[in-house]
């Protein structure tokens, strides 16, 4: 088994109210609009053209757009096979945004299409369908991003020798508050020099500052 000593941040993205960043570049800005308006605006800006996106709940829409910022349309272009790529995501509000919508419908006939999104890990499922990912997956609930823990989980996945890429991140949405921070991590030692080493300091720094020194 080839256990990598070092993991690298191939790319990172950050979506905060009104702004979407890839690495340290502002990709899309739309201040003062609702969560829906911003998500639709970013969807159009990225030219995603995936009609199923409109059927998703807002948490899955946010997670899919973050993945769209990071990943090539097919992972094969990056040299990854479906089983090579893992996904580790986390958030604070679970699927509460959709849970409350579903609860509001209970007096009438609730929508099955809303019900299927009343779990936070469905966002992972939507990303795997879109990008053909079939590797290990995990979703953690935590009060705030614990990058030290998430880094350990990611290291453990790579140490088992099955994973070459991991999509690691925080995807949180409730009402008008939303935030996504996602990293594409690899063990590829032969990548570009601009990449940063994946460690707790760099993960926190990108999350808080939008750049890694």
């Amino acid at each position, binding site marked *: 088994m080839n256990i990598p000593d070092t993991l690298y941040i191939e790319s990172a993205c950050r979506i905060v109210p009104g702004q979407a960043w890839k690495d340290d570049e502002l990709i899309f800005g739309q201040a003062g609009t609702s969560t829906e308006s911003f998500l639709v605006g970013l969807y159009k800006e990225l030219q995603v053209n995936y*009609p199923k996106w*409109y059927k998703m709940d807002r948490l899955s829409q946010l997670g899919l757009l973050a993945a769209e910022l990071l990943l090539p349309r097919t992972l094969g272009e990056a040299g990854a096979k479906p089983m090579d790529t893992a996904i580790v995501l986390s958030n604070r509000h679970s699927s509460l945004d959709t849970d409350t919508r579903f609860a509001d419908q209970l007096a*009438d006939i609730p929508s099955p*299409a809303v019900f*299927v999104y009343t779990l936070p890990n469905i966002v992972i499922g939507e990303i795997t369908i879109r990008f053909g990912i079939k590797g290990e997956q995990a979703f953690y609930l935590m009060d705030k991003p614990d990058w030290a823990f998430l880094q350990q989980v990611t290291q453990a996945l790579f140490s088992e020798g099955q994973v070459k890429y991991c999509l690691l991140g925080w995807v949180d949405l409730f009402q008008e508050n939303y935030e996504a921070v996602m990293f594409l991590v690899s063990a590829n030692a032969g990548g570009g020099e601009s990449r940063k080493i994946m460690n707790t300091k760099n993960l926190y720094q990108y999350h808080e500052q939008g750049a890694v020194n």
Partner: protein
Amino acid sequence: MNREQLIEDLKGQIIEQLNLQQVTPADIKADDPLFNEGLGLDSIDALELIVLLQQKYSVKLANAEDGPKVFQSVGSIADFIIATKAEKS
């Protein structure tokens, strides 16, 4: 509402209920298949259609086995609504 009017009404309801943002009523032909080819609906959409029939047209699909035949196209849904309402009255 006659069959043609019902079909037009159904097209609008389906687009709204299933959130088919890039589809217009003119894109849906009465005999086009709704699942797989055609509109490409999936199993969750089938459940949404059952809810739609109950909420908007007060019609229940009593036997799940009838689903594939009833939901074959917008035209077959209209025929099902008309036949069920005729049975009731």
